[in-house]
């Protein structure tokens, strides 16, 4: 057993942390998230071309650093520490994960483009009626000659306004909630018939409602088998869920550190408020949640390669624990800051907002506890 990081992994973390501390301070972030496009494209380019960071989980044969889920977790945790809105999750973790899983010509063509920073992918999976059920799909892809015709509505697609490509789940068969009949497609984002409504999200990113209106897509857009795509979708969403747990760990660590720092400066009744035992115990409880989030993230990473049921149980355990922890740490960071925590002026409130959205991303606490119970405690 060994829980130490390799030299390469330490190098990835240190390089990225240094880069982000130079380029991603809170004021700079606020400036670009409030700009028209909502991002600074130069940061993505630098992550790709100066740091080679977008190659972290990819094989060397594709030009990557030869890593995997642990490297993704390292990157996501560092992005969490700066509440980064870079589309690493949908592009590298999710689309990259799908391409690695299917391999072949599609992987050979797209992965190098991801690594180079030329491709940004948004993951269009959620639908208004579907909540967190990945099979609850009304979007359809009908066979049409060598290709397909796509129709449907995808909701709250993070990073879609910036995307060159969309990774889309759709039905090639079966009824709305059937496990059979789900297919996964990687398509260009500007095909005729794709209509977007873009908007900001409460946690500082950008997203879109996407409507597919008789969109003709080529046959080679299909990733994996036609109608048998759900296990692949579940696998990449589990990988993404663990990556979000890693991001949460970074966010929670900063919420905790910010609270420690503030309570040592803020004086009331003649003393720093950190002297009050009720606040000390609260900050100890926050600390314990951060540590457990880190532990559960590592557990999730290490169990991603197990058979599907064991993998899903582990990921659900991690996400359920992290969701509760993010809720507790976020709320108590604000409470301990008092009024100033509720303003847009301090970074702490923005970390709280991201922590809140992470709680339900890829499934709420209840969703994951339910999945865990079904997998582990079934009669």
């Amino acid at each position: 057993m060994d829980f130490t990081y390799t030299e390469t992994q330490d190098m990835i973390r240190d390089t990225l942390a240094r880069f982000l501390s130079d380029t991603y301070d809170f004021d700079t972030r606020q400036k670009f998230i409030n700009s028209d496009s909502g991002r600074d494209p130069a940061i993505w380019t630098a992550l790709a071309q100066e740091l080679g960071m977008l190659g972290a989980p990819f094989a060397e044969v594709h030009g990557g650093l030869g890593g995997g889920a642990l490297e993704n977790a390292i990157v996501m945790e560092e992005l969490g520490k700066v509440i980064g809105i870079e589309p690493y999750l949908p592009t590298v973790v999710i689309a990259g994960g799908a391409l690695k899983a299917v391999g072949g010509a599609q992987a050979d063509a797209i992965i190098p483009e991801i690594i180079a920073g030329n491709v940004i992918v948004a993951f269009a999976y959620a639908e208004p009626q579907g909540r967190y059920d990945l099979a609850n799909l009304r979007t359809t892809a009908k066979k049409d000659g060598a290709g397909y015709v796509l129709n449907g509505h995808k909701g709250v697609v993070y990073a879609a306004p910036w995307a060159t490509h969309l990774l889309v789940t759709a039905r090639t068969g079966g009824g709305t909630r059937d496990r059979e009949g789900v297919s996964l497609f990687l398509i260009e984002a500007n095909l005729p018939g794709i209509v977007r409504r873009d908007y900001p999200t409460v946690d500082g990113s950008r997203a879109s409602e996407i409507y597919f209106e008789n969109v003709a897509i080529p046959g080679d857009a299909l990733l994996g088998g036609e109608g048998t795509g759900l296990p692949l979708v579940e696998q990449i969403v589990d990988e993404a869920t663990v990556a979000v747990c890693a991001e949460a760990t970074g966010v929670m660590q900063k919420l905790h550190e910010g609270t420690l720092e503030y309570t040592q400066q803020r004086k009331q009744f003649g003393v720093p408020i950190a002297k009050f035992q009720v606040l000390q115990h609260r900050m100890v409880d926050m600390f314990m949640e951060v540590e457990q989030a880190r532990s559960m993230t590592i557990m999730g990473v290490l169990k991603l390669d197990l058979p599907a049921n064991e993998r899903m149980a582990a990921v659900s355990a991690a996400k359920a624990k992290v969701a509760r922890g993010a809720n507790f740490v976020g709320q108590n960071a604000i409470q301990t800051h008092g009024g100033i925590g509720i303003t847009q002026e301090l970074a702490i409130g923005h970390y709280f907002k991201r922590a809140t959205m992470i709680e339900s991303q890829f499934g709420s606490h209840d969703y994951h506890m339910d999945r865990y119970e079904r997998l582990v405690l079934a009669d």
Partner: protein
Amino acid sequence: MDMEFSPEDLAFQQEVRDFIAENYPADLREKQDEGEEMSKEDFLVWHKILHKKGWIAPAWPVEYGGTGWTPTQRFIWSEETARADCIRLMPFGLAMVGPVIYTFGTPEQKAHFLPRILSGEDWWCQGYSEPGSGSDLASLRTTAVRDGDDYIVNGQKTWTTLAQHADWGFFLVRTDKDAKQQEGISFLLIDMKSPGITVRPIITLGGEHEVNEVWLEDVRVPVANRVYEENKGWTCAKFLLAHERTGIAGVAASKRGIEKVKAIARTEVDGNKPLLANAFFKRKVAELEVDLAALEFTELRSLAGPNAGRGPGPESSLLKIKGSEIQQRLTELSLEAVGHYGAPYFRGFGEGDNEHPIGPDYAHRAAPTYFNMRKTTIYGGSNEIQRNIIAKMVLGL
């Protein structure tokens, strides 16, 4: 002991229901349902209707414009207005400075200010907290120095709710630097249009402009606008803080909030069933209802029990703590209920923008409201301070 309404109470309840049904403005209701931010005029339109009816200040003594209702009638009133989702009346005049003025003010102050509070002519704001004085309010540093018939006021206040609309503000200021902290404070009424006052917005997490910083630079305030004796302002402040806490349980509003959460959870689909049929979600709603019942009957005991009529005591801290926690859990449950559609940030309708917000109507304020309502365990004396009060005043620790 009983909890039944008398025939007179039931008749009164019907009268209130009819009045609201006939008089509540339809366009205001529509704006509320759309979740739009309310303008000053929006807040005042219902106020003015109630003023005309003579129902604007049920809690005030009849001689100053109160309704003379029994505690039960006042309870019915707050229940019914919440049930009908009537817009909240601004508390700064009606519930805060009004009672201070009729309790401690001069005949001239009463004659001038009270009718204008009732009519809604003057919008009030509260100048209490300072950047360095939050929970430790008595450490406040804004000074007022006598200069003939005026005070000259200098300092900075913060968290001043809706000061951007205010005509008048009630301020705690230090008039004796050498006295013990709480003994050198005075209570001043300040015209917000006075030269030297600057109001600067503070934008909160949901994007709202609700609170402000107020800067006071050599602001001249007539001594005649001081309420009660010089250096005795803390007496007014304590009176007002206790007053502020009585309504803070928010039972009626939380009942309405639970109904809204249920309505969302009946509409939202989870698999092939409404979300409200999800056992985990349903249990959370049920737990909220149980906790709200406990809060309600604790409040009713304090309204109608043996200590009724003696004014709010330290037990009102219990109502504030439990009431604020319930309000927050409600917003948390709403956000959970709307699922993915908690994420889109709706900035309100711009000029000429009729495009519908993203997702269902009930979703687009869920996250901003959840963020915003974190304030309830902080304002009006944080819940930590309320627990200190209970420990000291109730438990004698």
